[in-house]
Structure formats: C-alpha cells, structure tokens
C-alpha cells in the first residue's frame, strides 16, 4: 500500500520504521553491532538538540585566594605549578598512577575483537586498574580457546596475561565481574585458583566486581547480538530472542539479577568470606535509590562502589534506554554525596577528557572509568592509543587541579564546581 499520510512535527519516520520492521526497530540497526559504540547522546547538535549533559553543564571554578597553594608553596619552598600535582590515587584498594581506570567491556563483540587485549596491555603499562566484564566465560570461554568467528579471541585469561605482562610492580590491579550466568561457570572460583592470577592475588591487585547493573540499560541485564549458531549454544544459559527477523541474528540477554538491601549486603559479605585475599568491588546502575545502595555496599565491606551514569555503555541497548532511562551521572553523584564521608566511589559514563573527570572527582568520586574512550583509543592505535589518550587526560587533570589551587585529586570538592543558575552547588 502506498503511504499517503504525512504528520509534520510527529515522529513519522520512526513510526513508519516500526511499521515496516516490527520489534527490530526497538534497537539500533544490528548491522552496526560490533562497529559502533552506543550510549546517550550528551552533546547538543542540530540533529540532537536535547539538553546538555548535566555534568558537562557544570563549570570548574578556581578561586582567587588559595590557602592550599600556600601550603604547597611552604612544602616546596617555591611557587608550585601544575607539574606538582600528584595524581597517584587509591582506587578500591589498588594503587593507581592516575584517578582513572578502564571500565568493563565484556562479551560485547566490539570489546572482543582484539581491542580488549590491546586495552589490557596498555592499561597494565600505564599502571591503572582495569575491570574485565561479565559473560566472557560462558560466551567466549575461559582461555579464549572456545572462541569462534562470532566471539573473537578475548578469553578472560588472555586479557589477564596481557595486562600482567606490562604492569609495573606496586601499581594497577584487575577487577573481574561475574554475572548470574557467570556464576554457573564459577568465574570467580576459577580466577581465584588460576595459577596465572596468583601473582596479582599475592600482591593485593586482584578484585572481584559484583555487577548489580549498568548505566546503558539500568534494570536490564547485558545484551548483545549473536549469530543464530552461537545462540543455539548459549540457549541453555541465556535468554535469546529473534527480534531482528533476518534469520541470522538474535538478541542475547543476561538476567539482571534480583537485588534487595539484604541480598546486596549478603552477596558482598559472602564474597569477602569466600575470597579473603581479593578486593570486593560493586557496580551499580544509575538508579533512583543509588544513595541507599551505595551505603549498603560500603557498610557490607565493599572496597569500591562504581556508579555508572545513564550516559555509560558500549554494548547493545534498546533505543529508549539511551536517552530516557536512568539518572545522569551528575545526579547520581549529587544523591550519593560521597564528598561528605564515604568509602571509595568510582564514576563512569562518557568519560574521556580531564574536565569531566575533574567534575566527577569534585562531586565525590575517587576515580573515573574509561569505557568507550578506551576502546576508541586502542582502535585508533592498538599499541599506544590509550597511552596517548591518558597523556592528554592526565595533563588536563594536572592543569585543572592546580588551577583550582590544589595538588591532589582527592582535594577536589563540591566548591570547585558551579551549576549555571545557582549561587553554589546545592550539595
């Protein structure tokens, strides 16, 4: 039937796409899967005139009068400059050369195309912590030996070895996630007894991260697109659904897992009981009760709690989740109020340069996670891309922190940022 109606000002094209393709239109075209990183738009453009990301909308506001700079001057017996900023940071029990770490990218095809191992090597060399994502063992395999064309060669041990081969003594560390499906494969038990993990374990540089949720799709589990042959292999452990209708690809979903205050508390305690030599990290989605969840996790003994803002994500997600679901990172940080008293709070979501990282630190985060930025950087140059990206980021951080009259990331505070339209940050 020939279309004759028009509906100016309405989402006519989107409606027509849905009428043509059905449920496939809930997702970005699956042909982009593995080549494009997804996430909230954030920037205002002509095509996307939405509101500016709330964290980007903040301004960093140096004072005129700087008592902390005087302290540094006394310490150094000379005027301090940006090179005097010491970026060394304790991140969830690990010593990092900078207040940044590489966020998880798990079984997502992008992360598994060799970029994961390249990112691991470079993160190790830089002495910054790295999180290895969920669902690698059930989909890709433990050693990578089970890899197929669909899943690449990013086995969990390959990434561990890549990181460890380059990391200097005394810095860095790896956190391994485990999803509900991973629990069936006992990923943490495997890692804890793996001979190749013993060095990191013995030097206090191994953590297990309980993934409660993620920024790109809060309330949902991990989602990826897999070929139908792979889907048949995974069907016993994952939900797979033919939403694309092409007979070649299906949507693979992990369960998000059910959490209450007591379940979260006890899972963390059980991790501490079972793995006394490993650190315990927790990753939270940008939920409205993020303050309560963070407090429960710290009280139960988590060494770090990550809040992944709704801007986060590298994997596959339903379209409404990109721009309409979950709290922006800035609002998460305001709610958690980690600048008051806290354990270690980590923040992720559209992190790639110094000012956004500095704003997150000012709002209470101990460090910021690089997700898409790390993948793009190693895609640009698998040997040095992340090194160079971090060179920019750390220089920017030194410049910004010193401009604020401070000389350590931990010294940043809410006083260092200003929200347009307010006299002072309301926190």
């Amino acid at each position, binding site marked *: 039937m020939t279309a004759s109606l028009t509906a100016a000002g309405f989402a006519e094209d989107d409606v027509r796409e849905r009428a043509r393709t059905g449920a496939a239109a809930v997702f970005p075209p699956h042909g982009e899967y593995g080549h494009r990183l997804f996430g909230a738009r954030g920037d205002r453009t002509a095509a996307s005139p939405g509101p500016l990301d709330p964290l980007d909308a903040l301004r960093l506001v140096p004072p005129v009068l700087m008592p902390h700079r005087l302290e540094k001057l006394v310490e150094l017996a000379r005027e301090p400059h940006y090179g005097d900023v010491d970026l060394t940071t304790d991140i969830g029990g690990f010593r990092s050369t900078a207040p940044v770490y590489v966020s998880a990218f798990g079984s997502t095809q992008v992360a598994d195309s060799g970029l994961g191992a390249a990112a691991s090597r470079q993160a190790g060399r830089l002495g910054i912590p790295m999180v290895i994502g969920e669902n690698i063992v059930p989909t890709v395999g433990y050693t990578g030996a089970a890899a197929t064309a669909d899943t690449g060669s990013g086995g969990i041990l390959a990434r561990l070895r890549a990181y460890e081969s380059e990391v200097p003594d005394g810095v860095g560390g790896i956190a391994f996630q485990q999803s509900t499906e991973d629990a069936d494969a006992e990923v943490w*038990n495997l890692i804890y007894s793996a001979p190749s993990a*013993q060095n990191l374990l013995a030097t206090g540089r191994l953590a297990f991260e309980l993934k409660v949720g993620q920024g790109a799709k809060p309330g949902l589990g991990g989602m990826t697109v897999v070929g139908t042959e792979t889907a048949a292999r995974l069907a016993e452990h994952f939900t797979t659904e033919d939403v694309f209708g092409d007979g070649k690809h299906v949507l693979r979903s992990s*369960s998000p897992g059910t959490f209450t205050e007591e379940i979260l508390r006890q899972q963390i*305690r059980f991790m*501490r*009981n079972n793995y006394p030599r490993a650190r315990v990290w927790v990753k939270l989605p940008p939920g409205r009760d993020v303050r309560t969840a963070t407090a429960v996790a710290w009280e139960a003994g988590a060494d770090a709690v990550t809040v992944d803002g709704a801007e986060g994500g590298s994997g596959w997600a339903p379209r409404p989740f990109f721009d309409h679901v979950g709290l922006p990172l800035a609002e998460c940080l305001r709610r958690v109020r980690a600048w008051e008293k806290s354990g270690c709070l980590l923040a992720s979501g559209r992190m790639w340069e110094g000012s956004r990282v500095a704003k997150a630190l000012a709002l209470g985060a101990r460090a910021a996670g690089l997700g898409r930025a790390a993948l793009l950087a190693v895609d640009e140059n698998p040997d040095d891309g992340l090194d160079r990206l971090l060179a920019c980021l750390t220089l920017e951080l030194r410049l910004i922190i010193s401009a604020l009259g401070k000389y350590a990331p931990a010294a940043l505070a809410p006083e260092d940022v200003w929200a347009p339209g307010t006299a002072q940050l309301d926190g």
Partner: protein
Amino acid sequence: MTDQQETQPPTTLPAHLRNPVTRAMVRVQNRIVRAAREHLTAQGFTELRPPIIGPVTDPGGRGSKQIDIDFYGHRYKLMTSAILYKQASLLAFDKIFCVAPNVRLEPLETANTSRHLVEFHQLDVEIAGASRNDAMNVAQDIVATAAAAVVADLEDELAVLGRDPQAFAALLKEDAPFDRMTHADAVAGLSRLGHPQNPDAEIDWEGEALLSVRADRPFFITDYPKGSRGFYDRENPERPGVLTNFDLIAPEGYGELISGSEREHDYARIVARMRETGENPAKYAWYLDMVRGGIPASSGFGIGLERLTRYIAGLDAVWQATAFPKTPGVVSA
C-alpha cells in the same frame, strides 16, 4: 603435628601405600566407619548410597570450584556434598546417613592448611523434624563412639601411628556435652589473642588453629553469620543474620571436623537465600520443584571422614588419612 616435612604428600603413590602409617590409618578409618554405622543403625537411621553426579550440587563457599562433566550435552557436576539429596532422602526416611564421596577444587591457598583434600568423604547425617541441638548430640555421640572403638580395639595401630590413647582421656571420660561457644564469642576470643577476625565471615584457618590448639577435647562453635555459609543453613527467625548452625572443632590444632545446621525448607526463603549467596535459582530446578512441593524441616551435618581419621590417628596432615590423596593444586596419581 609439627613435622613440616609431612605437610606435602609423598612423591609417589606406591611409597604412600607401602608406608606402615598408611596401613594403620586405613584400619583406624575402617573402625571409625564401622562404629558410626553400628551406632546410627542402632539409633534407627537408614543408610543410603549417595549420588555422584547431578545437574547441580552444593555451591559451597570459600572459593572452592566444582568439577563440570558433560552429561549428554548438559553440564553436570560431581558432588561437592550430598546436601540437596540428603534433604530429598527425608521424603523416604526420617533419619538417614550415608558415606558420600565429594570432590572440590579447593583454592591454592588451602594447599598448606594440612586439612584440605580435593577428593574426600563425608559421613552425612540428616534427621527430619530435628533441632540443631538434636543434631549436635548425634554428632557428639558419633565422634565419642568412634574414638572409643579405636582406643579399645586398635592399640597396636595407635602405637604404629605414635598416637597416645591418653589424648582422648578428656573426650572419653567426661559424660557431658562438648563445650559450646558462639561465633561472636570465638571472634572476641581471637581478638583477645591478637588475631583479627572478620565478624561477618568464617573463622579463618589461622584463627581456627589458635582456638583448636587450646582445647583438650572437641568443642562446638555455633551461630555463624549469614554471609559465611550456603543457602541451606537456616537463618534464626528470632535473630536475623545469624544462622542456626554449628561446626565441631577438634582439639590439639586439628581443627574443623563437622559442619551442620538446621535447614531452610521453606521455598520462598530458599530462593531468597540463594540470591543472597549469589546463586542462580534457575539451575536448581529439580530441587526447587521438590521444595515447592514440600520437604520436611530437618537438621543434619557432615563429618569429614579423613579429618576425623586424622584427628583420631594423630596424623600431621589430612592427606595421610586417605589411601589415594589428592591435595589442592598438586598433580598426582
């Protein structure tokens, strides 16, 4: 208990099997099992042969890994304990026991505890309608009966093993329940000894050894915190966060012999507890279907047979208490 050379297995299985200590140990172990069987049978217990494989097994804790096997295209497990089948057995008999083979890939850090084997046996007991106290009494009777039988019948073997029968004087003389302390008491006691112990977790190996070495007969530790044990140990309804469970600790530094508890048996409670221990309820399908249909309330426990043998025979390490030792991380016969 002090010879460091004995903390690792012998280089070859033939050398171990030719060792007179091994032969004496096997006779002691057989006497222990016979004494337990006779005692339990006389008390009206029925012995069942336990399963070796299943789609799911005891999730355990403390980092031990299960062994997967391919079961016609499905992932099955070797039993890490018989707990799920023990609860199921109560649909047939009210009082059951079994001598169950278990396999756990224990973490490498347990290689030097002198009391971890990858392959071992549990003398498992489960009693429908029983309280924790009932189960503790049965556990005490088994240990006392076994020790008495060995002391009475195997004087020569104990001599070969260098085990002084007087080691059991306190155990056999006093006709009174073994001493009991709560987990909180144990944590406080360890703190006084200068040993930091996480109050939310299991007593660690060093802490347990410190408590054990100070005792002259076995004693119970009760009321472990919830985050330290599997989903089947019942949470005390009057004291949320505290489990109605127990361990029996051997004296002289031999450490834990038994773990037991009242069991969770309510379907919704079990599902919630599974989540609290990070388990995926979907893989427990047969068990949850059974629980949904109703299983009896019960209490029970498992005795580490090689650990009990080690204690009674006075062996330095638990690998000496099996003819075919497999210790964590060591590739052996």
